[in-house]
């Protein structure tokens, strides 16, 4: 029942959405790994049951309203009431409930099979701190982007130290809250390489709407190489403009909040910028990642993402902003 139903829904939705099609980057209907693949058939089964029951009720109401007298007499019998109102729901719901329990249990099994790959994601207002552990046990920090090796089960520890957030990558798994004082664990497993989008699903005040991130699933070997690169210090500025940007970075106290490994900037309040240039977005998937966007963000972040905790640096002249943008863009 699951497959035809999906084809149906896909057709419906693409009829409504000729442009976007069904390849939504943040769509739970396009599962690409782990728990999302387990939930998908359960979802379609329950949706199918719902549609069938809805159709049945519609027909029954129609018959009750305008059907032949004989049929209507049948509908008003006591056994119809007990059969339709009690026995039928019990049978159908028992089936769905058992199916649901089995999928829940699959989650437990997946978790106990998760290997030594651990990533810690901390919900912040309003961005994500992502800390990887290298095979040597070193911690490597990144932000607003999660990279996953395809085919490996990765244990994601979810924390928060301010308000409650919720970690959700619809293509890979259901959501799990990040709650101050607790550690929740979610096992992710990407089935194929590709990019999907996640977003905070628990209202966390202020810029909740602009707290998203990307998940990049890459072949395991590429992932290992990437992680090794990620653990290295930042690139050194080469051009004069980049050097000027680096100097402005220091002079304006950016290091109070941001870390760039290998420099004196060791702040821990904001995202780690060591390899910021290699990420897909800035401002928690609010802006694209290029030099111009960096410049815009630095001066206008309070307009781009209201209430975010970084002060707007409108004191900087356009050429200074360009230099800073060039410097940050360099940090791949």
């Amino acid at each position: 029942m699951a497959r035809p139903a999906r084809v149906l829904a896909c057709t419906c939705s693409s009829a409504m959405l000729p442009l976007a099609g069904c390849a939504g980057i943040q769509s739970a209907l396009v599962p690409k790994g782990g728990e999302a693949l387990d939930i998908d058939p359960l979802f379609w089964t329950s949706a199918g049951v719902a549609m069938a029951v809805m159709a049945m009720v519609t027909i029954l109401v129609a018959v009750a309203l305008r059907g032949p007298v004989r049929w209507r007499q049948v509908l008003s019998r006591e056994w119809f009431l007990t059969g339709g109102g009690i026995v039928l729901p019990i049978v159908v719901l028992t089936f769905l409930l058992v199916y649901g329990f089995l999928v829940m249990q699959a989650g437990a099994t997946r978790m106990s099979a998760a290997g030594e790959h651990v990533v810690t994601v901390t919900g912040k207002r309003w961005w994500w701190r992502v800390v990887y552990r290298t095979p040597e046990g070193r911690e490597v920090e990144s932000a607003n982007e999660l990279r996953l090796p395809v085919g490996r089960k990765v244990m994601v520890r979810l924390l928060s130290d301010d308000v409650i957030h919720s970690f959700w990558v619809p293509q890979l798994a259901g959501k799990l809250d990040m709650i101050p004082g607790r550690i929740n664990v979610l096992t992710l497993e990407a089935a194929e390489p590709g990019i999907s989008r996640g977003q905070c699903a628990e209202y966390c005040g202020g810029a909740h709407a602009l707290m998203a991130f990307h998940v990049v699933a890459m072949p395991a070997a590429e992932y290992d190489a990437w992680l090794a690169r990620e653990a290295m210090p930042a690139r050194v500025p080469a051009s004069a403009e980049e050097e000027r940007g680096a100097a402005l970075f220091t002079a304006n106290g950016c290091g109070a909040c941001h870390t760039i490994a290998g420099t004196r900037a060791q702040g821990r309040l904001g995202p780690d910028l060591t390899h910021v240039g290699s990420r897909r977005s800035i401002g928690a998937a609010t802006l694209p990642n290029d030099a111009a966007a960096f410049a815009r963000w630095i001066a206008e972040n309070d307009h781009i993402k209201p209430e975010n905790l970084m002060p707007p640096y409108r004191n900087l002249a356009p050429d200074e902003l360009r230099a800073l943008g060039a410097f940050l863009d360099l940090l791949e």
Partner: protein
Amino acid sequence: MVAIGLGLLAVSGLYNVAATRPHFRPVDHLIKFALRRSISLHSLGVLLPDLTDPALAQLGREHFATGCAPCHSQPGHARHPIARGMLPSPPRLEGAASRWETRELFWIVRHGLKFTGMPAWTGRDRDDEVWAVVAYLQRMPHDDDTVPAREKRTPALGFGIDEPSPLARCAACHGDGRRRPVHASVPVLHGQKEGYLARALSEYHDGRRQSGIMEPLAAVLSAEDIGRIARHFAEADRPAAVARPGDARVARGRRIFREGVPRQELPACRSCHAPETSAQFPLLDGLSGHYVEAQLGLFRSGVRSGTTHGRIMSVIAERLSPEQIADIAAFLDSGGERAPVPAEARREGE
């Protein structure tokens, strides 16, 4: 009937508004009565701070000399001839403290009075400055009759005549290399970064930064004046820090200054306020706790968020609690980074 009568009076233009003729006596009484009632009612919510500090009154006197004396005249001085032509005539303020409640004085200085020529305080929401003037008004000699009228000098200050050099005007309040500023609410400028000083004066000049004291003074400065003043102070030596014994408050302030408060997303103060950072970011060492506390309060409440730099600081100051502001102020008051760190605090820091 009364309304129609008043209307006719107004339309006819018979009432003479010339300042050469005083109001009819009943009108005068009515106006004064309404004025007193209005001031009394509107000043009801004013909360009095501690005004006993003589230094505060001294600061008030400095402002009084430039801002108030031209009309109200100074004790021991005769009234300025132009001010004499005003109606209602600006009262002499000796003994004003006995005619008005303190809260009423504050309210008048803060808000000014309609139809009298008394202006409102220039620096919007800078109530802290107004209190200095009130403190001075309270201490003004009650009776100036001891000085014979002919010996009273006409005022030397005001209306742009006989201005002393701008630098001397600065030193009057901010002190010089040896002398501390007149009052703790006045910042030390010596040894401050030049860029910051120039920016601050321009902001006052353009009315972007609020101060009833600094705005009028900076308004008359030219760009060259500003540059000259900034350079002068930047090149001077910072006055020696008055190291005070550190208490728990100072230790907490030191911690915030050096490490910030990660839980509150608060960066360390010194990551921006340090000699090696942008010339636009002021040095904080040696500033008085009073000044720091007041300014952080202004950032926090948004009064100082009007400038590009102020906006940066107010975003951060919003995260500080009043207690933390007091801690930081205590730390800077004790000499800041330049003060010797007590042994136990050094251990704690490590």
